[in-house]
């Protein structure tokens, strides 16, 4: 079939680095106990502030060095991946779920409902998310669960807007009208006709949001609003490491690099997914027929 043939060809252009990074992230998160050389919360003051192994004073016992309490940086980064991933997926799923539901409703039903929802979106977008986070965490107290809730509540707007936009354009297609004419219920139309044609953008957005969510968590933890010590999160590591930046730079740098790599990875993969999934969809919907770059002549 032409469809799978096209997919296969596109798979060749996959961003290997991006996928590798994400793969590493997932493996670290799942098998942290097996991979990490040390327990991330083990303190050993005698080993405090040891530099990475390639610098004088470092050793292979702590490849990336230790922090101010003698905890192994590498192990903390590996365990931190678990926090980031758990958080990432749940938060993305939560905001995705809320955002998609609202986007579908707003886009499909339009009218007053749509106007009201869009105004709510505008209002929420006009408030800096940090302030909202501060307020909510202040009320609920800092913990991993609460961060997830906060992120879910603030991030849904991105999904909502994009889904709504997609729904508006899909809705215009005749096959939606024909579904109505055939007697399909609203639920059926939304689930069989609208949602499947919108899901591609959703996947792309979710991938990109993963990186953003991880940064969000880091920011919150940095401010002390996120996970509490001794749980190792990259954000906390950044916060703790800040004061040692001038002479023990490795405390903050490596978690920073980890964050950067993950965001890079998700962006690369997200972009690639968008290219993979979108043009075929666009072509199929707007009249490309069997050919790719065919000019209408």
């Amino acid at each position, binding site marked *: 079939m032409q469809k799978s043939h096209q997919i296969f060809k596109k798979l060749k252009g996959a961003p290997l680095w991006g996928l590798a990074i994400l793969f590493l992230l997932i493996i670290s998160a799942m098998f942290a106990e097996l991979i990490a050389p040390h327990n991330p919360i083990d303190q050993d003051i005698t080993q405090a502030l040891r530099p990475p192994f390639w610098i004088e004073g470092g050793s292979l016992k702590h490849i990336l060095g230790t922090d101010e309490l003698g905890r192994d940086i590498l192990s903390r980064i590996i365990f931190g991946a678990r926090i980031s991933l758990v958080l990432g997926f749940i938060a993305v799923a939560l905001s995705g779920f809320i955002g998609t539901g609202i986007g579908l409703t707003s886009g499909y039903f339009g009218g007053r409902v749509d106007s009201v929802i869009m*105004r709510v979106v505008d209002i929420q977008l006009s408030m800096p998310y940090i302030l909202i986070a501060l307020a909510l965490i202040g009320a609920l107290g800092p913990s991993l669960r609460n961060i997830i809730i906060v992120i879910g509540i603030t991030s849904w707007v991105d999904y909502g807007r994009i889904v709504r936009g997609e729904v508006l354009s899909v809705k215009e*297609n005749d096959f939606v009208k024909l579904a109505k004419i055939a007697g399909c219920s609203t639920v059926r139309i939304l689930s069989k006709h609208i949602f499947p044609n919108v899901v591609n953008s959703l996947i792309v957005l979710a991938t990109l949001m993963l990186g953003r969510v991880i940064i969000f968590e880091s920011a919150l933890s940095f401010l002390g609003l996120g996970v509490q010590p001794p749980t190792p999160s990259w954000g906390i590591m950044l916060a703790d490491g800040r004061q040692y930046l001038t002479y023990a730079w490795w405390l903050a740098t490596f978690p920073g690099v980890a964050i950067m790599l993950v965001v890079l990875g998700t962006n690369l993969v997200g972009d690639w997914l968008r290219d993979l999934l979108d043009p075929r969809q666009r072509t199929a919907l707007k009249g490309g027929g069997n050919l790719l770059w065919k000019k209408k002549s």
Partner: protein
Amino acid sequence: MNTQLILEVKDLKKYFSIQKGTLFSKEIGVVKAIDGLTFHIDKGGTLGLAGESGCGKSTTGMAILKLLEPTSGEVLFEGENIGHFDRKETFIYRRDVQAVFQNPYASLNPRMRIGEIIEEPMVVHKILNPMGRLNRVRELLEVVGMNPDYLERFPHEFSGGQRQRIGIARALSVNPKLLVLDEPVSALDVSIRAQILNLLMDLQREFGLTYLFISHDLSVVEHISDVVAVMYLGKLVEIANCRDLYHLPLHPYTQALLSAIPIPDPELPQEAIVLEGEIVDPASLEGGCLFRNRCPKIKEKCNEEEPILKEIKKGHSVACHFASG
């Protein structure tokens, strides 16, 4: 009640209001998409609804398909006013009336296999069991001239003409009584157009279908219709049986429309009645004949009084002050 009448439209009006503002909107104007339409379709026949863009023919289709609520007037299906249907009756109506639209690329859900697409109306109306439906889908594909094994494929694997066939198969799956065809061949290549027109005519003969054929292309309309109704700016200007309309059009607009169709014969001299003037906002023409700013035969009375549809000869009605049979 005439049992031969499958559809009757009586003084149908659909006005769209132009709103301003978001939360608290105000009406600032009105677009009279359909302004007093009356016609009927006989069972087993084809009514061609012809006119150019903006005349209201597609809106009429939408109203008959119950996708729009009319502002006033009635649409009677087998004698019943569809505007008074409750949910159950509407659901049944959605079995009896199906449609085929212009754009073959937007008419099929790209995420569904064509077998599922054709089957869907049957699924919704709980007709047959899955096995029975599978057989019927295969049967329908053959009936529309396609290989029944294609039911596993996706829409993007097919050309425009083939997609229209799939759309027709879907429409037929629930044995509808009336088929609304809105420009079903306009987006197709000329050579494919002929195939689909033949198919539609064959199907009508075989299954006793009734068609409402909406199109701007008068040569296509003539080919397939028994009765033709010509619309202009929301009103019916002429309605006659096909032969009469094409041999002796009585309304100046119909005359211009027909003469404007270029005949594929270079040796036949063709003097098109070229209409001067533009299609303007009908609101500015109220109070008189809506065609008067372009009509080559305009007289004083046209400015003062709007002509109503009058039967000039048997089965031939015209809305013009000066039409004579």
